[in-house]
């Protein structure tokens, strides 16, 4: 299983994501300015600040050269996971519904949070535990979508992860921490599963989100 991990010039958690996927497969670094996915089986868009994120997080990265191929790959059914800034990029690219807004606190927050797995029946969550302890770290993580869209997402089981009661760190609508597209192959989440793959540095609860993808190549 080859996991492509995109590096933008301002990516911060790209190496962390490479280390995490290397525990369940092979990590393939992908460069933002290339038009080549190098035959990977799944794509991870990692956390960070892609191009500085000065306009809106993900707004510029969404037009990066490599994103042409990522969007094609996703439309063809390829599995794409966006973590934090990657989630913001996927929303800006309209591969996922909704948008991420500034935290209600207006502040960056780095904290270990408890998550509930709402939909264990996706390609990304088959091997994940029902409750996960994973860190969040962001300023722009408040999930937003218009009310009717939220109703539809819930009805379609597209809400995959929720902050446990009392744990919502950013004011996200309906405590949403991660959503999947209708087709079930594009997944975005604000918490950082790549920072929850080793008991020494935290927890191992995030590993299942990567392990679930094994065998998911196109």
């Amino acid at each position, binding site marked *: 299983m080859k996991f492509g991990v995109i590096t933008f010039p301002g990516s911060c958690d790209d190496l962390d994501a490479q280390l995490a996927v290397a525990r369940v497969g092979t990590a393939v670094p992908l460069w933002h300015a290339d038009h080549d996915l190098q035959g990977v089986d799944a794509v991870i868009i990692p956390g960070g600040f892609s191009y500085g994120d000065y*306009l*809106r997080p993900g*707004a*510029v990265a969404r*037009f990066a050269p490599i994103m042409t191929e990522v969007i094609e790959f996703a439309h063809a059914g390829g599995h794409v996971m966006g973590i934090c800034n990657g989630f913001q990029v996927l929303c*800006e690219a309209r591969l996922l519904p*909704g*948008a991420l*807004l*500034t*935290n*209600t*606190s*207006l502040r960056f927050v780095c904290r270990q949070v408890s998550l509930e797995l709402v939909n264990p029946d996706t390609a990304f969550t088959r091997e994940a535990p029902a409750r996960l302890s994973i860190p969040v770290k962001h300023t722009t993580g*408040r999930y*937003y*979508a*218009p009310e009717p869209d939220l109703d539809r997402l819930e009805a379609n089981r597209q809400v995959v992860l929720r902050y446990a009661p009392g744990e919502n760190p950013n*004011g996200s609508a309906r405590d949403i921490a991660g959503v999947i597209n209708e087709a079930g192959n594009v997944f975005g989440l604000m918490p950082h599963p790549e920072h929850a793959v080793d008991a020494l540095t935290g927890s191992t609860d995030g590993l299942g989100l990567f392990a679930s993808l094994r065998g998911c190549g196109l």
Partner: protein
Amino acid sequence: MHARVLIRPKAGILDPQGAVAERALGALGFDGVKGVRIGRLVELDVADPATLPEMCERLLANPLIEDYEIIESPA
């Protein structure tokens, strides 16, 4: 052509930055301040002003969460 693009959070979207500024203005003794919303101002020179709406839709604003207003003025 010189243009200014005003980008604001859409009506109904929680704007914590605006809310904080509103509270702070009240604390400074400015009574009767309501509806503070904080957005962005983009200034640019463009060859073809007809392309401005597309620029806004695709990059400068996120239409899901933001409204934009284009104000053109001769360069």
